[in-house]
C-alpha cells in the first residue's frame, strides 16, 4: 500500500513539476534575455487556462480540447506581444526594478479582467477527450492517463525549447544575449528585436502550462497567484536566466512539494525511530524548507545552482526616478500640509453631519495607516534605492507583535524563560503590559526592528533584483511560519482576534480601545455640532504624523543626506568615506519599525483588535509599492498622497465595480510608463509641457528629465 501511495504521489509530483518547468522556463528565459522579472507570468498562465475553457465550452465537443491546446497558448502569446510592445518596451534602459513594478500593475489588471470576463468561482473544462480519461496500468500500477499526458506534453515542450535554444540561430542569439548583451550588440545584432519574440514565447509556455494543468486541477481566478511564488522560487534556485536550472528546479520543487504535503514520506519512514518522527513534521515544514532554501541560495550562491557563473546583471543601467515638486514652492507646500492636518483633526467632528462614521473611522483610518506604511517603504526604496518586495513582513510582524502582546502570549513566553522569566513577567504585569495599547504597539515595533536588522544584515549585500527576491522570500517564510505553526502560537489560518487593550500604562487607564469617546455629541440648541468623536482616531493620526515627521527629520539630518547621496551614486558616496552598507542597514531598521507601527495600528483599528494571515499576503507588499510610486517616491509626502489616491480610489470605484483593482492597476501602469516620478511631479511636468509648447525646444528625453528636480528637503 505504501509503495502504491508513494508511486502515486511521485507521479503527482512529476505532473506538477513538469508544469512548473514550463512556467519557470518562460520566466527564466525572459529574465535572462531582458532582465525583466515578470510578476504577471502567473496571470498569463491563468489566461491560458481560461482561453482553453472558452474554446472547450463553446465547442462542446471533447476533441475541442486538442484545438484549445494549440489555440490558447497562441492567444496568450498574442497577449504577450501586446504586453511587451505597449508596456515593457518603453521601460528598457530604465532601472530593471521598474519592470517588477510594472508587471505587478499588470497582475492587478489581468486578474480582474479574468474575473470580469469569466466570472468568479471554480470552473473546469466541460469535457476532455476520452483517451485522456481513466487509468492505464503499467507494471502493475494504475496511472491516471491525464497525468501521463501532462508529463508527455511538458517533456515535449521542454525538449523542443532545449533544441530551439541550442540548435537554432534565434536560440544562439537568445543565449548569447543572456550571457552578455553588450557583446551581442557589438557584434551588430539587435538583441532588442528578439525581445518581443522571447516574451511571447515565454507567455505561450505559461499559457500551455495553464491549459494542461487546468484539465486536472480546474480553474479559479486566483490560480495565477498560487503558482507565481513557487515559480519564482524555482527560477531563483535553478539560477535566474538558466533553462537547465528551470528544468531541474521545476521537477525537484514539484516532487518535493507534493511528497511532503501528502504525508507519504512520513508514512514510509514511520517505522524508523527518530527519522520517522522528523518525517512526520515534514508537511508542516514544507513551506519553510522551500523558502529557507531560496533565501540560502540567494545569500550564498545568488546565481543559483545552474546559473551562469559570469552572470552580470545590468544593474544601474538607469536610476530609480524620484518625485519632484516644482510647481508649488516650499511655503505653499507647507501651508497645504498644515491645512490637510487641520482638516484631519476636525474630520471626526463632522461625523453624523456631513458624512457617517465609516468615512472617518474606517476609510480615513485606513488611508492613514497605509500612508505610514508607504512612507516607511519610501525610506528604503526612494532614498536607499532598495526595492523591498517583502515589506509586508514588517507590517505583519508589527501587527502580530501588537496582538500577541495584547493577548498575553508575550507575557506567557517571557514567564517561560528559566530563572529570569518569572520576575520579568511579574514586572510586565505591574506595568499592566498585556492591557496597554502603547506597550503593545511598542512590542510590535521593537520586534519588527529586530527582524529588520537581521533581514537587512543578511540581504543588503545582494543588490537590485536579488534584494527584491530575497525580501519576498523572507516575507513568504514568515507567512508560512504563522500559518503552519500550531494555532496556540499565532492563531494559524484563523488569525488572532478579540484581545482587549486599554489606553493605559502601569494601571493608569483612560479606558478600553474602541470605547473611549471624547465627545458624545455636542448640540447648540437644535443644531448638532458633533457626534461621537473617538479617541482611537486621534491615536492613529498622532502615530502616523509622528512617524512621518520622524522620517522627514531623519532624511534632513546628516544621515539622510548620506542616504540621498547613496541613491544618487553609490560608488561616489563610498569614495567620500561613507559606509554604504551600514547606512542601508540602519535605514532598513528604521523603515521596518515604521512599517510595524502601521501594522500595529492596523491591528487595533478593526472592529475588534486582531490580525489574520491574509494581512501577510504578498499582494499587500505590492500595493504599498504601487502607492509609493503612484504618489512619487523619494519625497516622503508623495507616498501619503499615493495612499490616499489608492484607498480613496478603491472606495470610490468599488461602489461601481468589483474590478476596481484593474482600474487602479491601469492607472498605475500608465504612471510607471509615462509619469514614473508620480503624482507629485504632475504640476511641474505640466508646466514644462506648456513651456515647450510655447516654443522652447524640448531638451532630453521627456519623461526622464525632471521638470524641476527636488533638491533638498521639502520645506
Amino acid at each position, binding site marked *: 500500500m505504501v509503495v502504491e501511495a508513494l508511486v502515486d504521489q511521485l507521479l503527482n509530483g512529476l505532473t506538477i513539476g513538469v508544469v512548473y518547468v514550463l512556467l519557470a522556463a518562460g520566466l527564466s528565459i525572459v529574465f535572462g534575455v531582458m532582465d525583466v522579472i515578470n510578476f504577471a507570468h502567473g496571470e498569463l498562465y491563468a489566461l491560458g487556462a481560461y482561453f482553453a475553457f472558452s474554446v472547450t465550452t463553446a465547442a462542446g465537443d471533447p476533441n475541442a480540447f486538442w484545438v484549445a491546446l494549440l489555440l490558447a497558448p497562441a492567444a496568450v502569446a498574442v497577449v504577450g506581444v501586446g504586453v511587451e510592445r505597449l508596456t515593457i518596451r518603453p521601460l528598457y534602459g530604465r532601472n530593471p526594478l521598474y519592470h517588477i513594478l510594472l508587471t505587478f500593475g499588470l497582475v492587478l489588471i489581468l486578474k480582474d479582467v479574468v474575473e470580469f470576463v469569466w466570472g468568479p468561482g471554480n470552473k473546469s473544462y466541460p469535457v476532455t477527450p476520452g483517451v485522456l480519461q481513466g487509468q492505464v496500468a503499467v507494471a502493475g500500477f494504475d496511472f491516471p492517463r491525464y497525468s501521463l499526458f501532462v508529463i508527455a506534453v511538458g517533456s515535449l515542450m521542454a525538449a523542443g525549447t532545449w533544441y530551439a535554444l541550442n540548435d537554432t540561430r534565434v536560440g544562439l542569439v537568445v543565449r548569447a544575449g543572456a550571457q552578455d548583451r553588450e557583446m551581442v550588440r557589438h557584434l551588430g545584432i539587435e538583441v532588442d528585436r528578439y525581445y518581443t519574440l522571447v516574451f511571447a514565447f515565454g507567455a505561450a509556455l505559461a499559457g500551455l502550462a495553464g491549459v494542461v494543468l487546468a484539465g486536472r486541477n480546474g480553474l479559479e481566478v486566483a490560480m495565477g497567484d498560487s503558482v507565481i511564488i513557487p515559480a519564482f522560487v524555482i527560477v531563483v534556485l535553478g539560477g535566474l536566466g538558466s533553462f537547465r536550472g528551470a528544468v531541474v528546479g521545476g521537477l525537484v520543487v514539484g516532487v518535493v512539494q507534493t511528497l511532503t504535503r501528502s504525508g507519504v514520506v512520513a508514512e514510509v519512514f514511520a517505522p524508523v525511530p527518530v527519522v520517522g518522527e522528523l518525517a512526520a513534521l515534514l508537511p508542516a515544514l514544507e513551506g519553510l524548507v522551500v523558502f529557507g532554501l531560496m533565501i540560502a541560495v540567494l545569500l550564498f550562491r545568488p546565481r543559483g545552482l545552474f546559473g551562469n557563473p559570469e552572470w552580470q546583471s545590468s544593474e544601474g543601467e538607469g536610476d530609480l526616478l524620484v518625485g519632484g515638486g516644482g510647481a508649488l514652492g516650499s511655503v505653499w507646500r507647507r501651508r497645504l500640509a498644515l491645512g490637510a492636518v487641520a482638516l484631519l483633526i476636525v474630520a471626526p467632528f463632522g461625523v453624523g453631519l456631513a458624512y457617517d462614521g465609516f468615512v472617518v473611522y474606517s476609510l480615513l483610518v485606513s488611508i492613514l495607516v497605509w500612508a505610514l506604511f508607504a512612507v516607511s517603504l519610501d525610506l528604503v526604496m526612494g532614498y536607499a534605492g532598495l526595492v523591498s518586495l517583502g515589506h509586508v513582513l514588517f507590517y505583519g510582524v508589527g501587527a502580530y507583535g501588537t496582538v500577541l502582546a495584547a493577548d498575553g502570549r508575550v507575557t506567557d513566553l517571557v514567564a517561560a524563560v528559566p530563572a529570569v522569566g518569572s520576575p520579568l513577567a511579574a514586572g510586565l504585569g505591574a506595568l499592566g503590559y498585556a492591557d496597554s495599547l502603547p506597550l503593545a504597539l511598542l512590542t510590535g515595533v521593537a520586534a519588527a526592528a529586530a527582524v529588520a536588522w537581521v533581514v537587512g544584515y543578511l540581504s543588503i549585500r545582494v543588490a537590485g533584483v536579488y534584494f527584491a527576491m530575497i525580501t519576498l522570500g523572507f516575507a513568504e517564510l514568515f507567512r508560512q511560519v504563522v500559518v503552519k505553526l500550531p494555532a496556540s502560537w499565532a492563531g494559524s489560518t484563523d488569525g488572532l482576534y478579540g484581545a482587549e487593550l486599554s489606553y493605559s500604562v502601569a494601571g493608569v487607564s483612560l479606558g478600553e480601545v474602541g470605547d473611549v469617546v471624547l465627545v458624545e455629541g455636542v448640540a447648540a440648541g437644535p443644531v448638532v455640532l458633533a457626534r461621537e468623536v473617538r479617541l482611537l482616531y486621534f491615536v492613529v493620526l498622532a502615530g502616523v504624523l509622528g512617524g512621518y515627521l520622524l522620517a522627514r527629520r531623519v532624511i534632513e*539630518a546628516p544621515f539622510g543626506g548620506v542616504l540621498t547621496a547613496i541613491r*544618487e551614486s553609490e*560608488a561616489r*558616496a563610498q569614495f*567620500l*568615506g561613507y*559606509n554604504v552598507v551600514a547606512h542601508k542597514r540602519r535605514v532598513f531598521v528604521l523603515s521596518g519599525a515604521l512599517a510595524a507601527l502601521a501594522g500595529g495600528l492596523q491591528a487595533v483599528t478593526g472592529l475588534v483588535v486582531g490580525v489574520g494571515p491574509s494581512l501577510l499576503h504578498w499582494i499587500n507588499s505590492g500595493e504599498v509599492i504601487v502607492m509609493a510610486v503612484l504618489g512619487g517616491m523619494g519625497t516622503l509626502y508623495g507616498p501619503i498622497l499615493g495612499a490616499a489616491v489608492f484607498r480613496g480610489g478603491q472606495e470610490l470605484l468599488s461602489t461601481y465595480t468589483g474590478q476596481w483593482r484593474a482600474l487602479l492597476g491601469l492607472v498605475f501602469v500608465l504612471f510607471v510608463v509615462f509619469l514614473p516620478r508620480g503624482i507629485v511631479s504632475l504640476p511641474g511636468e505640466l508646466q514644462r509641457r506648456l513651456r515647450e509648447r510655447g516654443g522652447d525646444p524640448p531638451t532630453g528625453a521627456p519623461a526622464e528629465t*525632471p521638470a524641476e528636480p527636488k533638491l*533638498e528637503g521639502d520645506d
Partner: protein
Amino acid sequence: MSADDASGTGAGTDRESDAVLATEALTKRFGELTAVDGVDLRVERGEFRSVIGPNGAGKTTLFDLITGAQRPTSGSVRFDGEDVTALAPHERVRRGLGRSFQITTVFSGLTVRENVRLAAQSVHDASISRVDRFLRPKGSFEAIAADTTATLKRVELADRTEERAGALAYGDRRRLEIGLVLATDPAVVLLDEPTAGMSAEETAATMQLIDEVLADRTLVLIEHDVDLVLEVSDRITVLDRGRVLTTGSPEAVADDGDVQRAYLGGDRG
C-alpha cells in the same frame, strides 16, 4: 614640486623611508590572467607620481587594489605606515586616501553646495553625535558649512552653489568633482585618467586645475597618455603586463628603451 620637498611628518612608522603610500608584492589574478603581478610601489609624501602603461598593463586594476574597490590575490597596501589591505574603500578614504573617477561622478540630482557639503560632512562624521546624526538638520553644522564654503571658493564654484550638479557644463562638473575630492581633505589623491575623452583644450584646463587645487597633496595619477604626464610628474612608474617596468624621473623614463618598446614595438597596445 619635487620628491625632495617631502616633509617627514607622520610617516615615521614606515620602516624604510618616508613613503606615504606603498604596495608590497601586490598581485591580482583573474583565473589564468595575472592583471597585477608583484607590484612594489613607493610614493613619497608630497610627490606627484604618475603610473603609465599601455592598455591592458593593469593600471586600472592597480588603482582598484589601492582604493579597495578590489581585493588583491596576495601582497599588501600600506598607507601612512598602516596596513590597509583588509580595509573597505570608505575606511581608506577616511584615513586620507581620496580618489577621482575616470568618468566624472558627482551627485547630479543634488545642488552644487549639497555635493560639496556631503564631502565635507565625511571629514567631520566621527565627531557628530549619534542624536545629531539622525535628528539635527544637516545644514546646521557650522564647521561643515565653513569647510563647504571654503572648498566651493577654492574650485571657483562659489557663485553656482544652488545649481543642480547635473545641469553644470562639463568643465564645471569636473571642477566640482575635484572639489569633492578636496573637501574630504585627503593626504593622497588618486586620479584615474582625469582627462580621458577630453579635447586638448579641456585636457590642459583640467591638468592646470589639478595643479592649482591639489598641489599641496600627494598625487598618484593613472594615465595612458605618456606626453601628458612628462611635464607634471616628479616621478613616473611604467607598468607593462601587470609588472613594474621601471620607475624614474620623467627624463629617465622618456629615454628608456624598454618603455619605448612597451608602447611602440610590443605585440600589444
